[in-house]
């Protein structure tokens, strides 16, 4: 089975607010019901994994951190007051865990990139981007993927997180502000600065506007 993580953000967000009773699952999980928690994990595993993966650019690290985030969330469920959605609360745990990990591993990061889905070859935007760079499309995408991840890793953790959540995962400024515990203005300014930096580093791979 091939998992495609390129779903539009709108669809993902609408799934999270589906009428399936999340609060009931949380309540049952809090009582130690692992079947209910399994359902919650299945619901958010792709998004949590993807965020961590895009932050670390390493599949093994992302796997460990994502699992640990879900385990920590289960253990801390009693402290979950319901002030925010379970999704936002879970995201905060994953993000904090990832940032702590990245701070400890400063300068020891290495790429372990996932394969590109075959649909990437048919994305018109990406095709347009690489068509001028190299005649070999597959090699071009792989090279582009490597350069993009290297550039992302050059950003500071808060700036990288804003880019990942907004430009890769399609989260709103408001949602990002809640996850990061800052105001929307900070999110906007971090996003602007991070894009400027990335644009400067990846200028050879971008189409002139």
């Amino acid at each position, binding site marked *: *089975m*091939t*998992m*495609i*993580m*390129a779903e539009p953000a709108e669809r993902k967000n609408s799934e999270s607010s589906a009428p399936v009773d999340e609060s009931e699952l949380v309540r049952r999980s809090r009582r*130690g019901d*692992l079947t209910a*928690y*399994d359902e919650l*994990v*299945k619901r958010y*595993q*792709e998004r949590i*994994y993807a965020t961590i*993966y*895009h932050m670390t650019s390493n*599949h093994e690290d992302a*796997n460990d951190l*994502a*699992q640990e985030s*879900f*385990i920590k969330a*289960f*253990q801390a469920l009693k402290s979950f007051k319901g002030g925010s959605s379970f999704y936002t609360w879970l995201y905060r745990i994953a993000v904090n865990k990832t940032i702590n990990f990245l701070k400890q591993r400063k300068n020891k990061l290495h790429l372990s*990139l*996932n*394969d*590109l*889905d075959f*649909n*990437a070859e048919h*994305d018109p*935007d*990406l095709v*347009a*981007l690489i068509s001028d760079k190299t005649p070999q499309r597959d090699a071009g*995408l792989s090279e*582009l*993927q490597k350069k*993009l*991840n290297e550039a992302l890793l050059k950003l500071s953790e808060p700036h990288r997180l804003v*880019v*990942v959540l907004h*430009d*890769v995962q399609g989260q709103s400024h408001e949602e990002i502000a809640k996850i990061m515990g800052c105001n929307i203005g900070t999110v*906007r300014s971090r996003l*602007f600065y991070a*894009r400027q930096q*990335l*644009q400067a580093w*990846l200028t050879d*791979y*971008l*189409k*002139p*506007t």
Partner: protein
Amino acid sequence: MNNNENDFNSLRQLLALKRYEVPPPGYFDRFSGNVVARLRVGQHESASGKSWLFKWAQIFEAKPLMAGSFAGALCLLLLFGIVYAERPDNEVMPLLQSAQLAPQSFAVGGAPSVVAPQVAVSEQSGQNLFASISNSSPSSLQPMFGQNQNPFAQQVSFTLPGN
């Protein structure tokens, strides 16, 4: 802000590439199972009382300063214990010495003193209350151990200072 969005349009197209990076096939089929399995192991460990030890070790692993201060506190406790253990010996000795002198000081006017009984191996002074007790109590043990057979069984008699 719209100008900014347009400025970065090309970059955003490039960032879309990240959405096509996918983990190995079937990865998410196993993911929740792995998480729940780890949680079950954790619950089992906490039920068997291992988790507190593990958490204890984890605290010291993450914080070397805390580990050092804990070790220092243990050393201080050990030193305090040694010093405290030596002090009572010095204080007990004078007490024992004064206790040995006590019979003379308390035996005024022929009054019986039971503060410092004298221990003797001989069998004498049957009129003495303590002696009668001492004579009678070991006799019940004699059938078991035999007279003077057991090196640990000694007859004890108490004599009043006046006798």
